[in-house]
């Protein structure tokens, strides 16, 4: 693929950069190309830090950056939390807090089986942590020494250690030459601060984001920091505006949604539709069933998996799941992904290998241990077990007891010192209830997913649901009047939803809906339909 001019400009740019990228503008492509240019110039012991929002996104970025067989050297591809854990907290914590007495346990506060009092204390700590408060710091030290790393506090660990360990800063500066952070519009203050501190240390800093796709405000993230970078003298701002993904009419609709004076691209065809169905949400689903074939033919859709039904919340997803006759699946994270446990992560990747057909055994192993550190005997043991599992599952079997030894063996070789009990339990659960998450990845099935989950993905056809007043944008009654809970966030969510569509976007509403109390009430179309004269841009 040859870069466009605006893409080429960014790929060739040097110095500290902030790129404002619209949906479908080829952001991952540009990043991967840039990384490909950077890697050969690095020494063997050097690398880049490439931070993506999800594991999936970072795997994709890594795959695309290394696709031409480049050496990744000592580069880090992963989420910011992974980076904190691996390169700052767990390692340099030793120097500030002392050696931990137990194996590290990385867990969410609410999954740690703590007493209420302790839980609320920790939550309080994560919200109002004070770096100048010695008691807070001592608490961190205590937790570290007992091996308890709470994910909700990982940023505090990392920030404190970064600020107080000269050895840590020196290490990061020596090893890493670039810090690249994607989805910068969903950035919290700690991530922004560390990003800037790394830039000050001398790393080349690159931030990529889209102001209009900031959808994680509810977790304390905002696009403030992206904006700050755009104002910062040290950074050069570039834009990636051309949307290569969506049909021009979809682009027009999405841009006009955000700004009343957006430039309109010329187009003959309107591909954004509003369908208002009589009845409740189930009727919408029936309607979709009826029209699916027509849509497929009209727009030359190759497979059902190119069709997505986007919802705001899981309740709606379940309704769709219940009533949709056409083959479909709900996209969700498996429990193994939720676990935040090294061994679970390993099992998750083994299952992905088994069903994905996208990676080899070697690639999967190398996610954990480089081949040269394994003896020949170990390598052949691993291969044997991987192949056994591959055959077993692909024949349709799924008895946990028949495969648990194989999983255990693989874990013993790749991570000998980790406790596997928790991961084995989760695996058992997953094999009982969630195997289709893996097994039907590439199936011919309509994908049902939340707007949040859809970020970064694309489909030929999108059916956008939950576009009701009170739902999107969410509202509540307060002091006798109506108040938006998070207007901007919801607007961005809607924007994300629309821009997932390549060929057509169908906005669906119905005359009735079920409210939060379970009662059937009248459903009114969302305010978003009437913003900025959008009616003219849809049919």
């Amino acid at each position: 693929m040859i870069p466009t001019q605006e893409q080429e400009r960014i790929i060739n740019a040097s110095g500290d950069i902030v790129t404002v990228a619209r949906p479908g503008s080829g952001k991952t492509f540009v990043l991967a190309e840039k990384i490909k240019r950077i890697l050969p110039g690095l020494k063997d012991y050097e690398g880049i830090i490439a931070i993506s929002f999800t594991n999936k996104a970072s795997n994709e970025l890594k795959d695309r950056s290394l696709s031409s067989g480049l050496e990744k050297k000592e580069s880090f591809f992963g989420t910011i939390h992974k980076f904190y854990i691996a390169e700052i907290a767990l390692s340099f914590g030793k120097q500030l807090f002392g050696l931990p007495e137990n194996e590290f346990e990385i867990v969410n506060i609410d999954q740690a089986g703590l007493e209420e009092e302790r839980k609320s204390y920790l939550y309080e700590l994560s919200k109002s942590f004070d770096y100048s408060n010695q008691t807070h710091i001592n608490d961190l030290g205590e937790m570290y020494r007992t091996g308890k790393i709470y994910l909700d506090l990982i940023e505090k660990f990392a920030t404190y250690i970064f600020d107080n360990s000269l050895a840590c800063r020196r290490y990061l500066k020596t090893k890493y030459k670039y810090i690249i952070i994607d989805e910068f519009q969903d950035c919290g203050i700690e991530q922004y601060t560390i990003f800037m501190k790394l830039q000050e240390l001398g790393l080349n800093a690159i931030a990529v984001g889209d102001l209009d796709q900031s959808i994680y405000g509810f977790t304390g993230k905002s696009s403030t920091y992206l904006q700050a970078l755009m104002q910062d003298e040290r950074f050069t701002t570039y834009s990636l505006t051309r949307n290569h993904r969506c049909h021009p009419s979809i682009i027009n609709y999405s841009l006009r949604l955000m700004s009343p004076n957006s430039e309109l691209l010329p187009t003959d065809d309107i591909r954004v539709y509003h369908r208002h169905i009589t009845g409740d949400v189930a009727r919408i689903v029936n309607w979709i069933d009826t029209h699916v074939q027509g849509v497929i033919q009209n727009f030359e859709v190759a497979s059902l998996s190119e069709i997505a039904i986007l919802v705001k919340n899981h309740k709606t997803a379940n309704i769709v799941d219940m009533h949709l006759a056409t083959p479909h699946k709900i996209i969700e994270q498996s429990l193994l992904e939720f676990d935040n446990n090294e061994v679970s992560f390993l099992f998750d990747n083994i299952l992905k290998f088994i069903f994905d057909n996208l990676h080899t055994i070697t690639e999967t192993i190398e996610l954990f241990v480089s081949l040269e550190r394994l003896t020949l005997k170990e390598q052949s043991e691993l291969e044997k077990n991987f192949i056994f599992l591959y055959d077993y599952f692909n024949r349709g079997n799924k008895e946990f007891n028949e495969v648990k030894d194989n999983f255990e063996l693989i874990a013993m070789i790749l991570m000998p010192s980790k406790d596997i009990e928790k991961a084995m339990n989760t695996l058992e659960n997953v094999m009982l209830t969630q195997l289709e998450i893996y097994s039907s990845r590439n199936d011919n099935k309509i994908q049902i997913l939340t707007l949040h989950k859809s970020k970064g993905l694309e489909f030929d056809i999108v059916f956008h649901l939950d576009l009701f007043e009170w739902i999107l944008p969410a509202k509540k009654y307060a002091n006798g009047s109506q108040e938006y809970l998070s207007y901007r966030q919801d607007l961005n969510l809607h924007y994300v939803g629309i821009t997932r569509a390549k060929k057509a976007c169908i906005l669906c509403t119905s005359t009735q809906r079920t409210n939060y109390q379970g009662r059937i009430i009248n459903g009114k179309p969302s305010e978003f339909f009437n913003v900025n004269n959008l009616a003219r841009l849809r049919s």
Partner: protein
Amino acid sequence: MKIESIKIKGFRNFKDAKFNFNTHTAIMGFNDIGKTNLMYALRLLLDKSIPESSLELNESDFFAFEDTNEIKITIKFSEVVEDFVVAKLREKISDGNEVFLRYQISRTDLEYKLFIGSSKSALEEIDSRYYLRAFNLKYVTSTRNLNSFINKEKKHLLEKTKESRSDEEKELDTTRIDELETTLTGLNASVTDISYVKNATNKINDELDKLSYKNTGQKLTFNVAGDDVDSLLNKIDLSMSTDEKLLAIGGDGKLNQIFLALWTNKYNTVSDLNEVSFYCIEEPEAHLHPHQQRRLSEYLASTLSNQVIITTHSPHIISEFNPNSIIKLYQEGKASYGANKGCSEDLGDNLLKFAHRLDVISTEAFYSSLVFLVEGQSEILFYKTLAKALNIDLDRLNISILMVDGVGFKSYITVLEHLKIPWIMRTDNDMFKIPRRDEYRYAGIQRGVDIYKEFLSGTFSAENEIDYENIKNFALPPNPDVWESAEKLIQVLDENNIFIAQKDLEWDLVNSAIKDKLAEYYETDDDDEILRLMQNRKGENMFKFLCEYAESLTVLDGDNISRPLKQAKEIIEHL
């Protein structure tokens, strides 16, 4: 990155010893005191050529003279700033750029453990010496085999230059090699034509024919280095050429030099690789003439860009090192230790300047079991001759006699104390005038007392303190109090091996049992005259006198003048 120190507990000669290192360090000490074992302790943790299986030490490696249950070897590194080491070791490096390594093995299960960390309290166990790829030790033993080393290095040397040819050179070489092919074929033809070469294999070939039909057509022949240029090039050998004439490579000394030159060349040209190397060389001086020894020492120090540690028996090489960079091993009880824990910053600037003026004779004293410090050349000549006359074998007892002429006793004693070498001294009983006053002092005794207080932590009784005050300033002639005080102090100093002459060597001799021989030699009976003549060209006169009258010195057996020698002998025999 450099090795700052090593602490060895319970291993071979070492019960519990710490050694500090400098950028260039020389390890010295008697045979069997543990020099090689000290090196081995470093090598266990740092030498790639020691396989993992050798890390399993056995019973005999534990310190034998006590209930030793554990061997612990800890190395501290400082100035760890190299990029690739920082990137590889991550949090194992402290804020202050330090790293610690530890090897530990217990006698109960003989299972060894390895640790690494940014401080002694942050040591974490590791599975293997994975760090060796980033930093390691290169070791050369005293029993170097040049021939096998050369055989290995030959290919390496040839390949290196082969790779770095320019395109032009490659072309030229190809032409040359082609020409060689032709020459070789011609050469082979000529050689095999020589009748006795040709016929040598006839008999064998006849027998082969009888053995197997298949063998007809195949013949054994002698020829020059195979058929092709490649095998010829593989068989070339190194030799020295003088004025373009080939010789076999010389004697052991030359072999040693070649070896070390090859060795340093090999490791110096890999400086672009991401690896830090520390160099350990045992006895670099082997088979070399003194000047060449010094030259070698300087060569190693300047060529090898990284830390160098040598063990040596050579005073010539030691004289190149300032005392801050010398580890002297000594024994106490049954265990070996490093004097002053090895290298240190203890010896200040003045002493560094002084140390560099030490000539080789002086540094030989470092190897002694005891040093007898005297004023000047005459004393050395005299005492060496006296020792012979009294049957005190200085070499066998390992006693050196050193003069402090011009430099002063304190400087030498400081160095000797630093290296933990026992010493005794004899100084003149000088009486100097105090400037701008009409008073005098017994400077010699004062000198002795100062040394007693400073180096022997001597304390005086209250009485002696008064004595000391008395001799510090008095008017002439000295009154009996002063005499008495002087005597008392001389007695105290004598008991501590600080010998004060009656006056000075010449005067003492004139007033001793050998006076008549002196009178004979100088052909005068007048004491003053003899003295005057003796002091005129002291050394030369002493030398000549001693040549003639060596055996007569036996009469001095019971004299005070012989006491230092007798005392030295006793000290050695009681060590």
